[in-house]
């Protein structure tokens, strides 16, 4: 198959995946004058299941790197003011984002716009089949419209999301070693919804799922649920809808549309990132970057940019790309893993909304109830055996002011 593939021209860098991390990476490379190709397996612009609520840090990155976001690239309402945590004790905790509201992105167009702004060549509907490191270059075999194409590049970047083909090529069998989660969002017409439309709502509730959220989009209400892969999410969703009606007075029409994705939650939680081998590096959610409450856009943008900067450095000085990337990416690892680090949460305020200040607004007895609720929410996660790793990593962070690179693949 590979030997009969049509040969395509040589690039300095090929990025696999036409999403935010790929666009950010491409931006750094193209600005520095390196020939860059992005391979995207879907036709562009392509749909992407996502809440679209980008963190303020991600919003600033878009603005400062790609320019003002176009109208097509946002949903209605255009902005989101903050996050509300809801607890089983029926206490709720609204937290405004620092620096004001942020954008509610339509990933279909925002990602495409960012790709175009990056200036890289894009080959859409091009599916990666294999990637092979030849030592001084990397050979990529891809398929488009039934035809095989062979590409060659100095470096290849895996920026193709949690279920990454590049990661599977570089680390065969890796996908069997980590837990997987399924996240689905269901779209409803609203009958009545007392939830504050300006906020993203998240339920810290062990009986509703690992990841349960709701917010307004285009005059409808999204209800989202996340569970371990293999669970019946439709049943879980029905339970959440009933809960919302019973406890919050949210009345919705039956869902007419649903969409889901598979996710690798937890790698940033336990500092188990995957950064690649040889001339192939991994970035974005493929590498394990995911902020708390599963906002992956801002760390995808930043880690993608860092991957681009490391590649520029390697190309300019003939440095080891792995060495450079792993040193540079440590700042983003800190930002991302700090969000899950219990010591940082208590003493550091690592999030873009002030959790501790919101907690302090409650009475002492309510605070105790909230902490009890959070503890009960964490219990179902126990089966993944992350507790000890989280504490160990948090202690390491305190002692060496970094997360141990030895845990990265």
């Amino acid at each position, binding site marked *: 198959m590979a030997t009969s593939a049509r040969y395509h021209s040589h690039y300095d860098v090929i990025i696999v995946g036409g999403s935010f991390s790929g666009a950010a990476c491409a931006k750094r490379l193209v*600005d520095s004058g390196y020939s860059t190709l992005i391979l995207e397996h879907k036709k562009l612009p392509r749909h992407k299941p996502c809440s679209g609520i980008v963190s303020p840090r991600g919003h600033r990155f878009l603005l400062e790197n790609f*320019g*003002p*976001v*176009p109208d097509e690239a946002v949903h209605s309402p255009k*902005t989101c003011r903050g996050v509300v945590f809801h607890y089983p004790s029926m206490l709720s905790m609204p937290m405004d984002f620092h620096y004001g509201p*942020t954008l509610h992105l339509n990933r279909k167009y925002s990602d495409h716009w960012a790709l175009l702004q990056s200036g890289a060549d894009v080959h859409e509907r091009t599916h990666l089949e294999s990637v092979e490191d030849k030592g001084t270059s990397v050979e990529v075999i891809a398929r488009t419209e039934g035809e095989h194409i062979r590409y060659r590049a100095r470096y290849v970047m895996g920026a193709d999301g949690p279920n990454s083909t590049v990661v599977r090529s570089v680390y065969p069998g890796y996908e069997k070693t980590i837990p997987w989660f399924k996240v689905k969002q269901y779209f409803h017409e609203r009958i009545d919804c007392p939830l504050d439309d300006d906020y993203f709502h998240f339920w810290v509730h062990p009986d509703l799922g690992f990841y349960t959220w709701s917010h307004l989009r285009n005059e409808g209400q999204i209800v989202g649920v996340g569970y371990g892969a293999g669970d019946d999410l439709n049943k879980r969703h029905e339970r959440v809808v009933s809960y919302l009606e019973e406890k919050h007075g949210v009345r919705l029409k039956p869902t007419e549309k649903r969409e889901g994705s598979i996710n690798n939650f937890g790698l940033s939680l336990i500092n188990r990132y995957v950064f690649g081998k040889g001339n192939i590096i991994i970035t974005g959610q493929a590498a394990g970057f995911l902020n708390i409450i599963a906002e992956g856009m801002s760390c995808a943008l930043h880690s993608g940019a860092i991957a681009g900067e490391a590649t520029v450095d390697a190309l300019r000085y003939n440095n080891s790309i792995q060495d450079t990337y792993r040193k540079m990416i440590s700042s983003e690892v800190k930002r991302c893993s700090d969000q899950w680090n219990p010591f940082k949460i208590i003493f550091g305020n690592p999030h873009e909304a002030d959790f501790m200040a919101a907690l302090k607004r409650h009475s002492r007895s309510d605070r105790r109830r909230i902490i009890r609720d959070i503890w009960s929410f964490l219990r179902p996660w126990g089966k993944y055996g992350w507790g000890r790793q989280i504490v160990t990593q948090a202690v390491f962070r305190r002692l060496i002011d970094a997360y141990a690179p030895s845990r990265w693949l």
Partner: protein
Amino acid sequence: MSYKTDGSKHIGKDSLIGIPRQQTNPSRWSGKGWDAFVGELGSSGIDVVTEPSKLSLYRSDAGGVATGSCHGVVIARSSEMIADIMRAAQKHRIPVTVKGGGLTTEGESVAFGGLQLDMRGMSKVINIDREDLTVRTEAGIYWHSLAESLRRYGMDYLSAPLNMTSSVGGTLGVGGIDVNSPRLGCSADQAVALKVVTPRGDIVECSEEDNRDLFELVLLGYGQFGIITEATLRIRPFTPITMHYFYYSSLREAMEDLKMLTREDAADYLGILTMLDRAINLLVAFDSDEREKMFFSNWRNKIRGHGEMGFAVRTAAHYLLRPWKLREALYLLDRKRTLLPALSPSHHIASGKIVDRSVVFSRAVWRFWGGRQMVIPDLATSEDKFVDAILKGNEVCKKYFDHYTLYCVGIKLHGKLPRYELSCIPPDAQDFAYGCEFEPMLEGKTYSRDYLQSFKNEIYDIGVEMGTSYYRFGGMMKGYIRRVFGDELVDRYLKMKEKADPSMILNRDVIF
């Protein structure tokens, strides 16, 4: 599918309240019209270098953080050649980025596409006038080359930037500050007359008497209103200098003494260099024995700095009581062992006097700060705000880096000159401004741009909060220009820029 965005606004207008841009990452220019432009230059006999191996020399600046790539390079040879280039560039709308020594740190001299104009091809000294005490030189010359030429005639420059591999033209465009500046002002203030190629391609001679508006716009103008091709600068007879150091362990005391000595014109050269905030070195130097004597009779007793031995004893006592800071103490010892001899190299000292300050203050010292990357955020303040701003900046340095240096000087102002308006000179400064560079010792470590940028932002945010200015506010940091100077002033300059440079091609993305 294409997207339309209105550059003057962004959706979610209420978003990111209180946090306007912190960083600018210009996009690479598309290349539209490049071939026609190169063809037109070719017909005028101007060669454009386009070989990738040669262009790769221009990918970054001294900062080493911003990287870009031009479409081609022209080595500047004459004002007439540059005028031809600018006329063609206006016609074809080709970005032109000018580079001299490339000592910018925020990518100001990095071309993100378009033409890179290398001024180092214009580096001849044209005339040295020992009676008028002026030198006429091409603007692409490095300061140390100029100093060497002047020495042959027993002359010397007045004030030059600390790193003398800067070019004269680039320095006049941003300021140029060193330990002479408390007495003489910035290098730009030593300019008597300039030959400038305007963005439209006119060659104009300007000075305080002729074409004064252009003269004031080009000096400290960040390369927005013209390319300086020749400059007439004030010079003076050469004198060896005597240097003394006084050591402090309190930043506040050292800064207060620096201010007092600056205000009272107590020395010919004054500055502060620190090792962390533990060993603060007040440098005092003199052109004549008389000035030195006056200092020791009138001011030595007023300052609180110690001699080397007194400071060593105090510092040893400090660390003996704090054994957990052993690593810091060892770092200071090592730094002292390597840095101080560089400030007094025996081969540049005769009879206890420094005979080549250009080497001592620049090349010999710079290797202790420079590296593959240099990150030097700064604050430029009025006298009242100086100490507080530096103390706040010092805390930011500690938060981000194990080792760092602060470099502080006063800058004498020559009245309320128009050139100071949109520059590093803060609007509330009277008679003197003060500058401090916060320079981490990167020591070969590799940091992400995001980490370095966060550090710079925290320093610059102090400036926004306190209403100061900056020396390095262009390029990647240009988001701060409107935050510091306000829309009214920036828009006024933008209108002038649009008039002078209709295609907005000269050094784009530096200020506007």
